[in-house]
């Protein structure tokens, strides 16, 4: 992974990087970007609804904050994932000296890296849920001319939340009953429900 942060790349360069054979940027970064786009759409609809909805300015401020948080996680997710992969490879094929010297300390360090790699997609999932929630409110109260954009925002946010929750659940072998697993699933469900409510209302 090169040193240039993803947010500093052109969109073309980032899309090329997603498609390249390297593991990073991968699914987590794509999920974060999706949620960031959704939050941006919510901000747009809220900004366009100032004349009809008194909460619109405050909702726009919240959407921009969610966008800021999600976009920052694009890079961190890739870094955390690469560190976890490196640690997993080293754990799978340790040198004799490594085992002799580090033993339990190595296991602890691996556990910490896996924890961090799980924490970031969990945060992406939770931001996705909040963005979907905000999109639903924007669709309900905002300018009707922009309702379709609010629906798209809800759908994207739900997709990003679902993708991130999947990463928490599957890629890192989360333990049954782990509280973070429950949180990830709750975020996925909340985001899906918000999106479905919006789409059902216009059918």
């Amino acid at each position, binding site marked *: 992974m090169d040193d240039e942060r993803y947010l500093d790349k052109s969109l073309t360069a980032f899309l090329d990087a997603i498609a390249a054979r390297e593991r990073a940027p991968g699914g987590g970064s794509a999920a974060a970007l999706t949620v960031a786009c959704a939050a941006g759409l919510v901000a747009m609809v809220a900004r366009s609804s100032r004349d009809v909805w*008194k*909460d*619109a*300015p*405050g*909702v726009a*401020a*919240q959407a921009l*904050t969610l966008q800021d*948080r999600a976009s920052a996680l694009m890079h961190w997710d890739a870094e955390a994932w690469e560190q976890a992969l490196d640690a997993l490879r080293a754990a799978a094929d340790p040198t004799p000296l490594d085992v002799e010297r580090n033993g339990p300390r190595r296991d602890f360090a691996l556990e910490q890296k896996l924890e961090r790699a799980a924490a970031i997609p969990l*945060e992406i999932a*939770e*931001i996705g*849920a*909040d963005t979907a*929630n*905000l999109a639903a*409110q924007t669709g309900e109260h905002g300018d009707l001319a922009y309702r379709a954009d609010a629906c798209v925002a809800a759908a994207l946010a739900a997709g990003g939340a679902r993708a991130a929750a999947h990463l928490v659940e599957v890629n890192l072998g989360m333990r049954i009953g782990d509280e973070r697993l429950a949180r990830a699933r*709750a*975020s996925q469900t*909340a985001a899906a429900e918000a999106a479905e409510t919006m789409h059902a209302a216009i059918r």
Partner: protein
Amino acid sequence: MRQSGDTLLVSRLSTLADAELVGRCRAGDAEAWNELVERFSRYVYAVTVRGFRLRAEDAEDVFQEVFARVYTHLHTLRDDDALRPWIGQLTRRLCIDSLARSGREQPGEPEAEEGRDRTAEIDEAMAVRDAMTALPEACQEILDRFFARDQSYRTISSELELPAGTIASRIARCLGKLREELEGRTEPPTASSE
């Protein structure tokens, strides 16, 4: 949850003006010192990591050094009302020294200048935070949790025991109250001069 006596004490200290707080610290009031640290910890932290973009280890060193010097030299402060600009100036100076020691910068060069520019935004943020203290406590809490502490609507709902579907609108309305509070003040929020 804190006991009611502790909560009342903390609440009283948090309403003290900076000058009063300085007086109590000089008198050896440990709780007053704790309040001083709490009151300025975000400011010092922001100047180190956001203003001057110090590495984490260097930022921690500067953070601790700032409060160590404040503690040691509080008796030399001539104008107790000037506590904040004094702490700000001290923090900026120590950040520049840290950049120089790490070999990243010589004083006066662009990185130090950019740090000073970014601290103007931090001073503006402090003015907003001051205005926030005039809002109902529920508003202060919800705004801080969402914007400064990155808490989700679900977490805010659970910890403040509020319906989840109302969090976003509550935040929006509290933000509106904050804007009105700032508009009502005689002077707009400005960066403090050095």
